[in-house]
């Protein structure tokens, strides 16, 4: 194969960009789970279904705007994301109250319970929206790409996902590390009994933490309608990558989640370019397994006394 140098250069730029998009997607996927799994210790197997709830909310929003407010269709996506956050968060709160709070002392049972929940949600989506995939129509400005040069094209929805991820990550960091509420969350995570003894309402903290984790999943699901499919079982295709990112990063460290998302996404996107899609996945997983064997606690751990 003979490629011109400028071709190779522009491919290199676009490939770097593809890696960054994948990085943003991974962070967005994993952030909600990192809060729920990392901070609360709940293995939430229904994380993907909360994402798909966000996607369906976006779908309904698109339909609603098309029918009643066609003039504002260009900005419906922002409304949809806000609604997705509220809907997934509200469902999260309900689930925490009805199911999760009874299982805090039995972390492995949460795995089974939330897996059951994911099956229930899948069937609910199937009954309500039908088994087929639904197409979510996007406003015109979100489609296509910007021509940075003759050969370099930057995808608008990629830029959008990157911007969104930055915004949400910043908000989560502010919430957890710069607000009074965040201090309470971290106190509950580190020692539930003592936190309760000093007057923190641990039940309330748990409920809101779980709801925010689910809400972020909802936003992620809403954003992914731009790049992926919306069907009752689509959440399943995200769950493995999500857990991979969170576990690899070290479950209790949000910074670890981001570092691991960066590592995995860059490895995968580079390998995909030089190998084929399936083989890239194999090598990425092998690398992760290898590193986890040497460092079972993940990349980053919080140093606290147990």
């Amino acid at each position: 194969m003979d490629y011109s140098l400028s071709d190779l250069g522009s491919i290199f730029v676009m490939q770097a960009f593809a890696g960054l998009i994948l990085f943003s997607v991974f962070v967005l996927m994993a952030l909600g789970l990192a809060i729920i799994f990392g901070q609360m210790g709940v293995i939430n197997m229904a994380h993907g279904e909360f994402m798909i709830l966000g996607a369906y909310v976006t779908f309904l929003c698109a339909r609603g705007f098309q029918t009643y407010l066609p003039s504002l269709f260009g900005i419906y996506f922002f409304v949809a994301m806000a609604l997705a956050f509220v809907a997934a968060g509200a469902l999260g709160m309900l689930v925490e109250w009805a199911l999760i709070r009874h299982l805090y002392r039995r972390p492995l049972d949460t795995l089974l319970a939330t897996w059951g929940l994911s099956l229930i949600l899948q069937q609910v989506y199937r009954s309500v929206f039908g088994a087929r995939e639904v197409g979510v129509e996007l406003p015109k400005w979100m489609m296509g790409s910007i021509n940075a040069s003759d050969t370099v094209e930057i995808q608008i929805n990629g830029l959008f996902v990157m911007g969104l991820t930055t915004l949400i990550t910043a908000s989560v960091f502010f919430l957890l590390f710069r607000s009074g509420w965040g201090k309470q969350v971290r106190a509950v995570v580190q020692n539930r009994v003592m936190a309760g003894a000093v007057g923190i309402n641990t039940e309330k903290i748990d409920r809101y933490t779980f709801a925010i984790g689910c809400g972020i999943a909802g936003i992620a699901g809403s954003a992914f309608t731009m790049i992926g499919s919306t069907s009752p079982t689509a959440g399943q295709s995200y769950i493995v990558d999500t857990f991979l990112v969170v576990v690899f990063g070290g479950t209790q460290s949000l910074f670890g989640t981001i570092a691991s998302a960066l590592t995995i996404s860059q490895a995968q996107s580079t390998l995909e370019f030089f190998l084929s899609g399936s083989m890239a996945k194999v090598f990425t997983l092998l690398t992760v397994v290898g590193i986890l064997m040497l460092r079972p606690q993940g990349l980053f751990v919080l140093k606290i006394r147990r």
Partner: protein
Amino acid sequence: MASRDQRSDLQSPFRRKLLAGMAALPAVSLLPRRAFGAAATAAVNTTGLAVTDDTVTVGILHSVTGTMAISETGSVEAEKLAIDQINASGGVLGRQIKFIQEDGASDWPTFAEKAKKLLVNDKVAAVMGCWTSASRKAVLPVFEQYNGMLYYPTFYEGLEQSKNVIYTGQEATQQILAGLDWVVKEKNAKTFYLLGSDYIWPRTSNKIARKHIENVKQLKVVGEEYFPLSSTQFNSVINKIKLTKPDVIYAIIVGGSNVAFYKQLNAAGIDLNKQTLMTISVTEDEILGIGGENIVGAYACMKYFESLDNPNNKAFVPAFKKMWGETSVIGDVTQAAYLGPWLWKLTVEKAGSFDIDKVAEASPGVEFKGAPEGYVRIHENHHLWSKTRVGRARADGQYDLVYETADLMEPNPFPKGYQ
């Protein structure tokens, strides 16, 4: 002891005749009530299938829950429509069709279990069912062991033939070769990039495509790649496509990955009106999820499109929409599923019997002139003779027919030189 045995032996033929005569009496009393012209049940059903004097029971075995429900729902709908229409036109050998529906739940062992239940407990006369090759492979030993009849609707990779299965979809060579010939001639294509989801159908199909491109057409394959079924990120391969600039992207991606692939292709600025893309895995059903605006201009190669302009299809499409809603769409497999009950009815009437062996034997040569895709005929190898068509995707999610083979393509599940 010996003498008593002998005596009963002597008596028994007479006794048996007498008993049989007595047993037949109630049946005789029923005779006037039976539909006019229908043959006696004992004559058309010698193996104890679920056939009565005025009904016959068949099975429907698809996934209505789980990941495959997306694809299989259309097949179930088409089969129920066909059964309704056959009943309205007088049934099969004067008997109304009843059906028992089982859910394979997208799980292959469940398919095998339910197939056994349908054949052994319910004794159904035929089963319309399965979608993925994996589910078909799971039920095949059951159908062969308990001697059942399966009508399988999906286009698939070939390399299989059974007395107990009628394949109403196209096998790989029927679907692939004519389309490649067309794109080489029409688009003057020289280089191809093959893509697929990572399982047996896309891999076998791409193997056939590659052999045809390289050995028969003497052209070049510049890339061949597979992605896990749940893959949702295609930016790297899209960059590779941009680098290699193939004349044709040949894509056999399925399920949710499909949606991600076409959305990202569109977002990456690849205009399918300029870049030729041919697929054998995107029917009108899939476009619902992908969104017409993301795939407009792509070519699909299969045997049926909802927009086909022939009298059969003009009756079929409104009937389907009347039963299942105006917004429903009809893809290639849905149409093939619709053929199943009809072909079975025609075969049973040709054989004059519901017996599985007689139906299997009578199958070759059965013609269905009312098929929405046009005329079809069952081949000796239990696949269908059918035309192959190329359609071009429109923004509204339908295909415009741009080419169809002049003759019926012969099914060739074991193609020499392509394996």
